[in-house]
């Protein structure tokens, strides 16, 4: 989860998110370069007594500041498209989980090897135990294995919602009447949080998502089905 006053991205828990963080650093570096260049040019303009009365006809400068931005845009687009296509790679998921958005909770269905279906409501503040996170913890978490590709099928029962887990680089809209798919592979065990990311009514801020990622061999022993 994010810590207080965090402005950066959360640490990555999947290879795709690691790529997204690197891309973000790349794009931010370009932004800082351009901002520095513009501010420096402005500073120089404001702090000189020299004047120039012939400021027309600067063909070379015009060419440079047309070609250079085009090159910069290509430098941003290439890694961006690379990651976009990487997210769509076929990776033969081991497990498929359905996530259905309601007002204002999530339903999860594990139907690959049985018929486990449960709702996941935010813990009301009065029901929090010491150590629980206010507005983030839920009664029933989504327990999943790490190091195995997982497919999430996301939809909604009523209005638009969005199933998001920042540390995995996931955000997929839950649209009534439509089934959206996202896949991920987690690399570290732990408890990871997300929140509904599409305005859906009064309690939109109070339907969080909690993933409990455990090693595959522990998951195979069936803790999910004995909860």
């Amino acid at each position: 989860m994010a810590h207080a006053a965090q402005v950066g991205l959360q640490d990555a828990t999947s290879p795709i998110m690691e790529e997204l963080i690197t891309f973000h650093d790349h794009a931010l570096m370009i932004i800082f370069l351009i901002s520095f260049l513009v501010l420096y040019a402005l500073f120089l303009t404001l702090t000189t007594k020299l004047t120039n009365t012939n400021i027309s006809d600067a063909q070379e400068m015009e060419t440079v500041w047309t070609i250079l931005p085009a090159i910069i845009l290509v430098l941003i687009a290439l890694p961006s498209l690379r990651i976009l296509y990487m997210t769509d790679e076929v990776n033969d998921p081991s497990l498929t989980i359905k996530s259905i958005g309601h007002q204002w909770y999530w339903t999860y269905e594990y139907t690959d090897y049985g018929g486990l279906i449960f709702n996941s409501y935010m813990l009301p503040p009065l029901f929090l135990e010491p150590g629980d996170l206010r507005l983030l913890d839920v009664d029933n978490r989504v327990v999943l294995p790490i190091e195995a590709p997982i497919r999430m099928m996301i939809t909604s029962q009523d209005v638009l919602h969005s199933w998001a887990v920042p540390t995995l680089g996931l955000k997929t809209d839950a649209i009534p009447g439509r089934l959206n798919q996202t896949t991920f592979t987690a690399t570290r065990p732990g408890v990871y949080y997300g929140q509904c990311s599409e305005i859906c009514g009064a309690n939109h801020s109070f339907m969080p998502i909690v993933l409990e990622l455990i090693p595959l061999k522990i998951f195979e022993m069936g803790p999910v089905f004995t909860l």
Partner: protein
Amino acid sequence: MAPEVLPKPRMRGLLARRLRNHMAVAFVLSLGVAALYKKAYADFYRNYDVMKDFEEMRKAGIFQSVK
């Protein structure tokens, strides 16, 4: 005797040259920063022991499915 004539100093394009040089250095330095991030993740995962990390978390009591 004719006075010694110094070579004509560079009179134009000073700012452009300065900016170009500074931007080139800054660009190279920022490439280094991006490489550092990738290295940090690679170093973390090189000797990462999943089960050890999981056992520490399990003993701390953060999981609901395994105690």
